[in-house]
């Protein structure tokens, strides 16, 4: 149905997107000037679904603005006051902690530029909040505040960020970006930092493994071209760092600010267009947020079908938008968010600050592995009454333990650990020789790996167990396996690192400096056992209704058949995103077996025995998780 454009000017743009080409500023103007709202929405939703399936994320979160006493006075802000003025407030840390419920998933702190609080106050705030709610992600201090700390406390930006991180900071919020335009800065917020400083601070955070968000304050006197320039500058930085999680367009609230917006701003149509255009322009941002506090509940709900995949959260209390007359209720209960997402036809996914799926609130959800080798199952898959959630194998396993996943491609270890609730289907991801995407990058040959640490990733247990089996039974070695906390390139302390999925493919092509030996674990297994290796397999929850089981099996089979007959461009596109040529992608996928044959079943049985003989059996990686956070998830991380 997407080819039926009312506005024919959109057709060439859609073709560009389909071929993996990037949209330009001029393309963006065509989008903004189009009155074909529904086609814009369909384009954006299609792109969004490729990235986040049917998921819409929300957090049980708390916003805190510790003070409104501000050294600045920006024209568009109704929030800031001076000390001693009526309404001025200034919270002590105890007071802040008192506002945070113990079961919170995310704490969001932004505030004014306080004239005399010492640096220790801020570090202490983060430390004590983290101590109070250790499970929560702390997302605190906009670039404006970071820059203010840097100048006021005469510390380098990097050190400010590093100290905050050590105190427990998880991410930076995206505020203070306003619009990246000197014209508008001089006009509206002359004393705020400019675009260059804002972007520099965010890039610095990304390099330290601190993910961040980015906002756009639109709907006042900016032009469409200025909105687009803003998006393009973010896209550029994201290409370099991959550290942005979410883009958040903020609809301007005129309130009593004295700014008179252009007449076409911001209608609900303008709001939805901005969401859709952002989704299409920011092709390297994992998420687009419809922030209901600013957009209203009405527009935010509709935006879930126009490219947005995040609704922010329960928020707790939000002062800034309300002081400017935003009309949405002060607190949307979690139930309301769930209902809004559900009625939008999506999966309500409760997340932490880094988009890990802590819980999902919908039946009949299929987990979708976001790796290239799973693509052949999904292009022609008719979802029917199922919904699709992209999720890395490890989190899929965890959600399945809570019976939250009806079916999906499970890491073999997760399947073996959950045979009581999971039933195997006849489809798998297996290979008979090299796999190319489960690789041990090593500084040494196998025999020399006995001493020293091997870094492993957190995404799947099967590859880790395969490595352990090979080390113990094939080579008789027992080196120490250590989870790598941060980006894999920081592997200086390791003798070898195990990489899987798209990251492994990319590194195979472009190399991992210092690690000159690359061992393909599937090849290692094949040469040893003369059997294929099954990395993952389709399985369904045993409680799934009989008719759904039948439908599911048929759908997988038909989808795979269709892909075998007419390979879709989807895998080429996906391969392109991680730097593979169409040919390399084809060759890579040709190495897999997607149907579970006799040899594959035998391989599973052999592997099961070998894993059971490990000490501890099946140990590291498979068991119940202390959620290890990926400090950085760019376009190739968990959120495909």
């Amino acid at each position, binding site marked *: 149905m997407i080819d039926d454009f*009312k506005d024919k000017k959109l057709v060439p743009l859609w073709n560009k997107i389909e071929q993996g080409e990037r949209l330009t500023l001029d393309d963006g103007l065509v989008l903004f000037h189009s009155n074909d709202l529904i086609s814009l929405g369909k384009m954006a939703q299609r792109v969004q679904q490729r990235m986040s399936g049917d998921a819409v994320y929300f957090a049980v979160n708390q916003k805190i603005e510790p003070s409104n006493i501000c050294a600045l006075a920006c024209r568009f802000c109704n929030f800031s006051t001076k000390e001693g003025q009526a309404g001025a407030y200034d919270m002590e840390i105890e007071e802040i902690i008192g506002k945070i419920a113990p079961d919170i998933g995310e704490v969001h702190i932004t505030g004014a530029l306080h004239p005399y609080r010492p640096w220790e106050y801020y570090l202490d705030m983060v430390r004590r909040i983290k101590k109070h709610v250790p499970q929560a992600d702390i997302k605190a201090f906009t670039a404006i505040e970071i820059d203010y700390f840097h100048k006021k406390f005469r510390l380098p930006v990097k050190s400010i960020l590093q100290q905050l991180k050590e105190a427990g900071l998880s991410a930076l919020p995206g505020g203070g970006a306003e619009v990246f335009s000197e014209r508008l800065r001089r006009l509206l917020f002359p004393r705020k930092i400019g675009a260059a400083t804002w972007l520099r601070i965010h890039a610095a955070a990304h390099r330290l493994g601190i993910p961040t968000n980015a906002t756009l304050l639109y709907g006042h006197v900016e032009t469409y071209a200025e909105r687009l320039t803003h998006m393009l500058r973010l896209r550029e930085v994201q290409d370099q760092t991959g550290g942005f999680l979410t883009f958040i367009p903020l609809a301007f609230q005129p309130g009593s600010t004295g700014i008179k917006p252009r007449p076409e701003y911001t209608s609900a149509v303008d709001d939805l267009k901005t969401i859709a255009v952002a989704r299409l322009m920011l092709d390297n941002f994992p998420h687009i947020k419809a922030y209901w506090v600013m957009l*209203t509940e*009405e527009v935010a*709900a*509709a935006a879930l079908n126009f490219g947005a995949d995040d609704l922010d959260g329960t928020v707790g209390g939000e002062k800034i938008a309300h002081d400017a007359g935003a009309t949405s209720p002060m607190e949307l209960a979690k139930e309301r968010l769930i*209902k809004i997402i559900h*009625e939008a036809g999506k999966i309500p996914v409760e997340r932490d600050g880094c988009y890990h799926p802590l819980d999902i609130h919908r039946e009949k959800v299929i987990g979708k592995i976001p790796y290239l080798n799973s693509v052949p199952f999904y292009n022609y898959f008719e979802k029917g009454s199922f919904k699709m959630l992209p999720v890395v194998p490890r989190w899929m396993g965890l959600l399945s333990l809570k019976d939250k996943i009806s079916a999906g491609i499970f890491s073999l270890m997760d399947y073996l650990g959950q045979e009581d609730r999971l039933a195997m289907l006849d489809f798998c991801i297996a290979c008979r020789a090299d796999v190319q995407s489960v690789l041990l990058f090593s500084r040494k040959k196998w025999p020399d790996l006995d001493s020293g640490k091997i870094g492993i990733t957190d995404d799947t247990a099967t590859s880790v167990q395969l490595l352990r089996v090979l080390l113990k039974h094939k080579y008789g070695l027992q080196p120490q396996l250590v989870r790598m906390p941060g980006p894999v390139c920081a592997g200086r302390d390791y003798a070898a690192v195990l990489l899987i999925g798209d990251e492994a493919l990319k590194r195979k092509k472009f190399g991992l400096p210092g690690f000159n030996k690359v061992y393909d674990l599937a090849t290692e297994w094949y040469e040893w056992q003369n059997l294929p290796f099954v990395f993952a397999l389709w399985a369904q929850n045993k409680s799934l209704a009989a008719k759904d089981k039948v439908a599911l099996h048929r759908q997988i089979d038909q989808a795979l058949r269709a892909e075998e007959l007419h390979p879709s461009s989807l895998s080429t596109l996906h391969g392109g995103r991680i730097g593979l040529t169409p040919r390399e992608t084809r060759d890579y996928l040709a190495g897999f077996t997607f149907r579970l044959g006799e040899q594959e079943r035998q391989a599973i049985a052999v592997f099961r025995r070998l894993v059971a003989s490990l000490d501890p059996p099946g140990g590291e990686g498979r068991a119940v998780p202390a959620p290890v956070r990926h400090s950085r998830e760019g376009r190739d991380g968990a959120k495909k």
Partner: protein
Amino acid sequence: MNLANIYAKINARVRIAPEEGLELLREAELLDLAELARVLRFQHNPLPRVTFVRDTNPNYTNVCENDCAFCAFYRHRDDPEAYAASVDEMIRNFQAAAKTGVTAVLLQGGVNPALPLDYYLEMVRRTVSEVPEVHPHFFSAPEIIGLSRFSGLSVPQLLQKFWDAGLRTLPGGGAEVLAEGVKKRISPRKGTAADWLSVMQAAHRIGYKATATMMYGHLESDADIITHLESIRRLQDEYQGFTAFVPWSFKPDNSPLGRSITQRATPTRYLRIIALARIYLENFPHIQASWFSEGKKIGQIALHFGADDFGGTLLEENVHASANFLNKTSAEECIRMIHTAGFDAAERTTLYAISQVFPLAI
């Protein structure tokens, strides 16, 4: 059932069956529905134009004996807040509204046994003669049913008397969801679904035009919504008496039903119903999206989901207000909302005749 087959049917302008409507309501992608609805909307109304009416929605009495579970407006006779306005008072109300440019009065009230038939007839006659600037759009089906009970006249007899007095259109309120099971639970004394339909049928037979409404988002199932649409589509086949379909969601505050249904239906549900209505009710000339009942922003969006009318300016409104749902506009804002949604605006009469066009300046 296959969605693609249903879409093909719709594109070929073949009427869809109730079970196909149900499949669409349950399974279709929202924007696929919107796309289909938009094509049909421009077929019904080829101009990129959205109409509205300058109207007011006063209530002559809040005394009602029907005790509907969803209503926050009514009071019993002995309640200190109970009121019943005289005809004089209402005429003054209409005259004041007319001075502000209002051209239509949508008048409804509780089912109040204390008011005699003459009160109602006089209200019509005097409006026609004393406030000729406004079109009387008076009395919903439940009031007609109540009046029939109190006066001993049959519904057709009553409607004929009103017609003779000068009434030409009826508001479509009181339908809620036209499925007997639902009506029995939320408004057992307001008349059955069949009663509502028979009032409309009698009216259409005489020559009245009316709107058809639906209040959803309480106890109804998806299938009940389809039953509702199917009932009014059938009636429309017979007499073409409906001008427009007007859905809105139940507002839970201050009503007994609101204690069990605490959450309003979501904005997306509204968009889905608007689009589905445009598809299902292919014999209805207009689908009305209201800036009022769900909020201005969702009203604007609905104009892209198959609706071609923005309802009235509602100078006065008390029923939603009793449920703490407050929303106000002016003709100027109404025009601006239509413009910023990307359409020309046009002021219309109750019977959908265009009186003035406000083109979207490009």
